[in-house]
């Protein structure tokens, strides 16, 4: 039978002797560390949870790393309103221009699918209703959810309709397509970095020319976009009207960046006599 524990083998006297010998060789006890007695202010008590965790600090940074800002870029009212959407903005202005291309799919008896392209100007605002501040001493607050109202105007390429059979086919076309939209956007901000990426889900109505009918009807507008701060992003957008569906993939830039592009393009066309 094997011994189960060391205490089964050793008499108390022997073990006490060995233990006292070891303890005699140990260093003397040091005084208690004073840092255990630091007083903590109530203002510095951090909340705990995923919404309160800030980005991990790093020992290295870009040479051009902006100084820690207490306020977002191009903001007023202590960050209450931003002219360029930002990670820590409580409310933001939306002003952008975009271009996109895709397909126009009429009803099957109205003709084949044709290419479609458009340029768009968009405006509106967003708010962040549920922003949480990590503690009272820090001014930056953050929340993943954003909500807003948007309106946009687009000029797209025209429509072609071909009705009837091969013997008696009626062909018609338009030069362009004008679209006006009003929609609500829900945003999900994906991080707390400056100019963070966010997913935008936009749903609303679109009023537009329908094929070659000459009629303007209301339809549904839906868009899924990924934005990078407020400076730009890419989107997949669709307008769904009666017998007329358009889906485009596009790129969007804030008005501060897109404005000069529009101005230069118009200046070039005008100076060249093309307008």
């Amino acid at each position, binding site marked *: 039978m094997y011994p189960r524990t060391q205490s089964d083998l*050793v008499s108390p006297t022997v073990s006490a002797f060995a233990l*006292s010998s070891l303890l005699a060789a140990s260093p003397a006890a040091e005084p208690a560390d004073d840092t255990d007695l630091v007083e903590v202010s109530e203002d510095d008590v951090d909340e705990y949870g995923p919404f309160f965790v800030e980005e991990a600090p790093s020992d290295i940074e*870009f040479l051009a790393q902006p100084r820690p800002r207490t306020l977002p870029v191009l903001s007023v009212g202590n960050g209450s309103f931003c002219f360029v959407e930002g990670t820590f903005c409580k409310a933001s202005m939306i002003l952008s221009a975009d*271009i996109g291309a895709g397909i126009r799919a009429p009803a099957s008896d109205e003709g084949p699918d*044709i290419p479609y392209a458009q340029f768009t100007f968009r405006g509106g605002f967003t708010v962040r209703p549920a922003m949480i501040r990590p503690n009272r001493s820090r001014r930056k607050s953050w929340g993943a959810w954003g909500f807003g109202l948007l309106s946009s105007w687009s000029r797209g390429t*025209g429509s072609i309709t071909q009705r009837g059979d091969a013997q008696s086919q009626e062909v018609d076309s338009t030069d362009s397509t004008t679209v006006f939209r009003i929609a609500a956007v829900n945003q999900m901000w994906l991080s707390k970095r400056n100019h963070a990426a966010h997913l935008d889900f936009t749903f609303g109505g679109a009023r537009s020319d329908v094929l070659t009918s000459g009629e303007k009807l209301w339809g549904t507008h839906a868009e899924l976009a990924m934005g990078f701060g407020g400076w*730009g992003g890419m989107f997949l957008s669709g307008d769904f009207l009666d017998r007329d569906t358009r889906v485009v993939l596009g790129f969007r830039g804030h008005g501060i960046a897109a404005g*000069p592009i529009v101005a230069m393009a118009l200046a*070039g066309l005008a100076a060249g006599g093309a307008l």
Partner: protein
Amino acid sequence: MKLSVSVLYALLASQPDADEATAAQPDASSAATDGDAATDVASPTEDPPAAEPEVRTPAAESSPAVSPEPEPEPEPILDSERYTVAGGPDGPPFYDDADTASLRARHEIEVEPLERTEGPRWRCLIADPACGRSVEVNALAAYSFRGRQGDVSGGGNDPRWHSGRAQYDVWLNFPVMTEVVGNKKFTRMTLAPKGGLIASDGGSTWGNLGMAFRYWLGRGRWAPAVEFTSALSFKLGENARGMDNERGDWTMTRGPVGFTADVGFGLGGFGSIVVGGQYDSPFAREEISDEYRTAAGGAFFIGFRGNILWGGPAAAAVATHAVTQRSVQTP
């Protein structure tokens, strides 16, 4: 006595750090005066670590099929062998300059890395290796050699002509590869979406959206860089033409999605020499009437692309755009 040596060996193997031993000292001292308590104090050694060689498990005992192999006899140490232990430094650092040089050589670290202190221009609105994420607006002014594929029913008409090209783009820059010098980080490679407008003769205007790539070959403000962009391109509009090829108003014009790509060699975020091409897909579906069909086309171009904040690139692009409209007759 043999038992006490065994206990001492086990205690040494499980001896905590000095701090822990110090913290446990008062209790242990009192335990040394009480036999029962001493047994309790020794009880943590009931599960000795794997270093305890004398305790064998019953599982090993009850497997007669596996007989342990005899351990090899250690080689005897000859009286003539002598061993010495090299004395090291008494305290840190435990390495010297030669060790540091060896480590640098092993990992190909520069001995004296080039330090840069000046920051970027225009708060990173002009691309710079010192910047992380940024946005910029670029304008391209280029000579373009355009062509259009003829219609097989039209006798092989295949026009080619000299023209100009202006392109205005927004670039987003995301650092996808960086390098660290000291405690500073520099961007080596950026890759991000971009989009904008392209213009040529006859009021031809395309939209484009794609990706822009830039690889910095240095860390300075004027560091050379290689750029590569590729994008989908699609017709937005052009000047309508009458029966006698007379120029009409600028109107929206449909066209299938083509693509454009270019390579640039630049200095800093100032500008780059760009060589590229574009392809316009034909709109030639069988169901579409002939009057709406478009032929395949394309262009090669070489020019200069720069950030519009410098002024010059923007002026050059607008001037190229205007001159192209006035001086080039679209076939």
